[in-house]
């Protein structure tokens, strides 16, 4: 099945005089994915982004938005159909938050009532309160302004969002919060997002695919895991040491959760002939309600598979299924363990995560 392509660049070149700032760049962004463009400053990532909504016209090559060549579209209409988010200073200081959010609707002459309703709807979606609408941008913190920036881009309900280092000017804590919120928001709105950043951690965190640019050329393109495994010297240097951990930070343990662990009811014997036991050191004891009581090492079992209740070890502190692999590994290292039990939001036992499956993650293709 081929997925729908929202934005496509074909051999795009941008020249300023004789300098090629973007050189033969081709990629396609699928509908609903977060595509991150990253690279050192001056690599052409922002230029590439701005060519999509033609803030910067390209010199040659084709840029297709929803299958149509952008040069064949009216540039104002094109921009109105694409959400555009920049650093928070992009809010218009002479307009209230409500007017800022509804700016695109104002440009397209929507009735005042619609503008107000849409602003009220969006301010809550981005996690601010209704009373912020009457304020001016300068009265809000950087993080709040950035949220308004996102709300503003969503006002006309575009399918595509272009984000140019949107979280570059806020402090690290706020940035992380905004990234989490963007991911949460993206789950419900499912926009196609092209995101420019210079922060590799951010790229790994929010990107479903990442394109690395260097001197105008696309040198690497793939999922975070593919990027980490790249053999290219420049890419290796650019993403730096410890990048693998950053990727692990973005993968939930549910990805490598082992659900099929050997279980035994607390009043039964372990079936020692079961083939399943071969790979395991422990058996997990559950009560009649399915709650896990603890585990017994195979070595502590009697010859016939029965066991005494006092041999049951309590489970170590469990991790949640949406915790990142990085945190789980840390937890294992701190506790000196090779595995952790995993519970879901209601603290019921889902299975375990093992150190060796973390190690195998690298072999998994993509996310």
């Amino acid at each position, binding site marked *: 099945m081929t997925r729908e392509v929202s934005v496509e660049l074909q051999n795009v070149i941008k020249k300023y005089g004789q300098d090629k700032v973007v050189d033969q760049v081709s990629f396609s962004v699928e509908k609903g994915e977060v595509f991150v463009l990253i690279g050192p400053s001056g690599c052409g990532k922002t230029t590439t982004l701005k060519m999509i909504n033609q803030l910067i016209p390209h010199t040659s090559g084709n840029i297709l938005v929803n299958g149509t060549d952008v040069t064949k579209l009216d540039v104002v209409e*094109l921009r109105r159909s694409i959400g555009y988010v920049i*650093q928070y*200073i*992009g809010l218009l200081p002479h307009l209230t938050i409500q007017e800022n959010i509804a700016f*695109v609707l104002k*440009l397209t002459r929507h009735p005042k009532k619609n503008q107000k309703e849409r602003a009220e709807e969006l301010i809550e979606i981005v996690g601010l309160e209704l009373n912020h609408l009457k304020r001016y941008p300068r009265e809000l913190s950087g993080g709040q302004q950035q949220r308004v920036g996102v709300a503003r881009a969503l006002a006309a309900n575009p399918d595509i969002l272009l984000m140019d280092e949107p979280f570059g000017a806020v402090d690290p804590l706020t940035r992380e919060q905004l990234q989490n919120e963007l991911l949460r928001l993206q789950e419900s709105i499912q926009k196609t997002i092209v995101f420019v950043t210079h922060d590799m951690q951010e790229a790994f965190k929010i990107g479903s695919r990442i394109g690395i640019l260097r001197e105008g050329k696309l040198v690497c393109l793939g999922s975070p895991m593919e990027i980490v495994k790249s053999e290219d010297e420049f890419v290796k240097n650019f993403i730096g040491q410890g990048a693998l951990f950053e990727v692990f930070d973005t993968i939930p343990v549910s990805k490598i959760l082992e659900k099929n662990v050997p279980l035994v009811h607390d009043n039964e014997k372990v079936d020692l002939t079961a083939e399943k036991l071969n790979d395991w050191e422990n058996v997990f004891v559950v009560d009649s309600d399915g709650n896990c009581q603890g585990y017994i090492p195979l070595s502590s079992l009697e010859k016939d598979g029965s066991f005494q209740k006092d041999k049951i070890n309590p489970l170590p502190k469990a991790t949640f299924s949406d915790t990142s692999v990085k945190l789980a590994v840390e937890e294992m290292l701190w506790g000196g363990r090779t595995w952790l039990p995993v519970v879901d939001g209601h603290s019921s036992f889902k299975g375990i995560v093992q150190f060796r499956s973390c190690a195998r993650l690298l072999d998994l293709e993509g996310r």
Partner: protein
Amino acid sequence: MIDLISSAWAYFMNRQDLMFIVLREHVMLVLWSTFFTVIIGVPLGIAISRTEKLRDLVLGSVSILYTIPILALFGFLIPIIGIGSTPALIALVIYGLLPVIRNSCVGITQVHPLLKESAKGMGANNMQLLFKVEIPLAFPVIFAGIRTALVMNFSLATYAVFIGAGGMGRIIMQGIRTFNTGMMLAGILMVVITTVLLERLVGYVDNRVQKRYSLSD
């Protein structure tokens, strides 16, 4: 000294009708000249903010006009247009143009490029960009230019009497000619007090404007 002031006061009380007439002439002259200054200066300032070549040319020539003493300018205008309020108006407009054009141009060019770009990125066309983003954001600077022109023209309009356009200068001139110190002083005080009041008033409005539009707190 007290004699002088009381004679000025006596003159003022006796000739309230005349005082009112000259004040009205003066204010009308200033209002009209400021009106034309804004009508010509603001669009011109915005226009030259787009092209650097034109900017140097226009600002250069307006600065030269600005340095001509007002009496010389009157001498230049009388043979062409004659006397009366029209040449006075033209002279005042010429003086007011420099601050208005310069501030309009500076105000527009000072609008942060990122703001313009974000408005463009959201799909503002050129007109919307100008009227919904650039002019509102440049407004405090443009207004400061208008303020300068207004206050300057108010005091310059005292010279309008030399070209037969009346105004408060009439009282002063007549007082000097007739050695009527009470009359002369009444005129001077009136000019000084009204100018200070006007300056205060526009200053207050200006403060409000700056606060309303300022980017920082």
